[in-house]
């Protein structure tokens, strides 16, 4: 989706002054508290109207103060998954979905409810009242409700806020699965850089209501003036594993050393922490790690005191990320094109989503 906006909004002493021209399926907005992230989302959703400027999505004007154009939230077709539980508390999960479908954007591709409910593991929750759901359940229902409304753009406002690690993985899996199943673009607001790196193709870093940097997530976030190395813990490689006929899992052409799984889902989502991947240039050797995958270094990025190395593994569609020390980079002679073997334990694979691939 093409984002083209230039907005100014003043609220008391705070001023948001953002200009952005970008094209991305998933755009991440990062920054500390008070940077203006949620205000930015409110300008997209129509909850706030800029004092000056314009917002265009895919060439269509949502707001243009100079032309006197300002679409209401109802007219925008922009979905929002709020960080608080904004489900209709007096209605059941199914009734929440009914409302979303009743006012769904005409002409937009239909999102089949049954498939969505199954993919997010919501079948058993359908008759439950929305105010009786746990945090992770509510967030998954919010995601599904937004998508059933067939938005042209989905805004995710800190979708992992207030969730512990297992629930975070559950919601992360849901987002990945939805991104796979639909073509709806996302805007993700987060204060955790690892989430932006994992999910977005383009990132804008805000500070004090202004754009500090914009571009490739890793390159923007690795800049010391943006966030600094101490905030970059928790970087992960996220991927979908295919379920093979023998009920084992594979990522691309590489089998995963996990137990056979049950269920009918055609894929399962996993996260692999960059701190859990060890690199060696000595070739495959006998180690306790169940995975030893040969590949080549495709990127080496400085992350403060550490380095993030991306490795293109033979037969795997996306690079593996490994966080190593500068000394290791020096001693192994790691640079673009260096052949390496990436090692990781089966226990390092964290299953995402409600059903999990392996557990």
């Amino acid at each position: 989706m093409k984002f083209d906006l230039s907005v100014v909004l003043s609220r008391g002493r705070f001023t948001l002054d953002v200009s952005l021209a970008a094209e991305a399926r998933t755009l991440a907005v990062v920054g500390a508290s008070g940077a203006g992230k949620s205000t930015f989302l409110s300008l997209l959703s129509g909850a706030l109207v800029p004092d000056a400027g314009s917002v265009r999505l895919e060439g269509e004007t949502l707001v243009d103060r100079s032309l006197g154009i300002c679409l209401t939230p109802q007219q925008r077709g922009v979905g929002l998954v709020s960080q608080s539980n904004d489900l209709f508390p007096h209605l059941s999960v199914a009734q929440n979905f009914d409302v979303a479908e009743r006012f769904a954007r005409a002409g937009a591709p239909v999102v089949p409810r049954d498939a969505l409910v199954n993919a997010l593991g919501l079948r058993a929750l359908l008759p439950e009242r929305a105010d009786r759901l746990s945090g992770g359940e509510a967030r998954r229902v919010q995601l599904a409700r937004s998508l059933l409304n067939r938005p042209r753009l989905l805004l995710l406002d800190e979708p992992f806020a207030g969730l512990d690690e297992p629930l975070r993985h559950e919601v992360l899996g849901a987002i990945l699965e939805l991104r796979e199943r639909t073509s709806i673009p996302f805007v993700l607001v987060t204060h955790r850089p690892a989430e932006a790196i994992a999910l977005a193709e383009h990132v804008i870093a805000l500070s004090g209501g202004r754009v500090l940097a914009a571009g490739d997530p890793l390159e923007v976030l690795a800049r010391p003036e943006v966030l600094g190395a101490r905030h970059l813990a928790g970087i992960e490689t996220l991927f979908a594993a295919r379920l093979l006929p023998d009920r084992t899992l594979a990522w691309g052409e590489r089998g995963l050393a996990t137990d056979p799984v049950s269920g009918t889902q055609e894929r399962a989502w996993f996260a692999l922490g960059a701190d859990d991947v060890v690199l060696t240039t000595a070739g495959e050797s006998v180690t306790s790690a169940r995975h030893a995958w040969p590949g080549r270094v495709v990127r080496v990025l400085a992350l403060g005191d550490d380095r993030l190395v991306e490795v293109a593994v033979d037969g795997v569609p996306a690079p593996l990320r490994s966080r190593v020390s500068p000394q290791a980079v020096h001693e192994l002679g790691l640079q673009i094109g260096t052949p390496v073997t990436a090692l990781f334990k089966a226990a390092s694979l964290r299953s995402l989503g409600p059903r999990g691939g392996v557990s």
Partner: protein
Amino acid sequence: METLRIPLSLSLPLAPFLVTARIALGATMLVVLVGLPLARLLSRAGRRGARWVPTIETLLLLPLVLPPTTLGYFLLVLLGRRSPVGELAFRLGMPLVFSVPGAVIAAAIAALPLFLQPALVAFDAVDPAVEQAARLLGAPERFVFFRIALPLAARGVVAGTVLAFARAVGDFGTTLMVAGAIPGRTETVAIAIYEAVQAGEDRSALLLALSVSLFSLSALAAARLSLRGGRSRIFRSNRTNAQAPS
């Protein structure tokens, strides 16, 4: 006059009860009709920080603190034949003073603050994010009000309705000033009790007083029972219980 024969050779006139029921029901309907959109408007304006809201809320609370005769006097001036409103109503064949419509309006104005207070608190307690979620899904404002905000504020709205009805049943001074005490038309139970005492009919006054107390209690109990998970929570409407699910 139709009377109800009861033991101890006492008779209880039915007319004041019928008049009271008619006026109180009419006033309650008027209060809900006017008060519901008013409460919603004030709540939304208050959220946006509109500066006029406290002034209007104070003015709307005035009937609660004004002496009923003072309120009645103002209404008499406002609705009398010498006022534009009263003259127009008279020409339309519906005089507003010393009539049932006048009594309904008087009781409604006296009861309005008692409806507004719990209703306002209840609307204030509806999470704005939930309403905004409905708008973002494309729901029009009518849907947001009737299907989202109103059900979530229902407890406070019902509490306000019950309190307004109870106030309309018990109104004396305002109704007397505006509508007089015409037997069978505007003489409510409260007025009939006063007149019975004035006439030295102590037993009639006692019976009427006991009956209206029982009537009011029954109405309140019925309202409580009609609320899911009722109990006395409706009479302590505040931010928490207005929002809480049953």
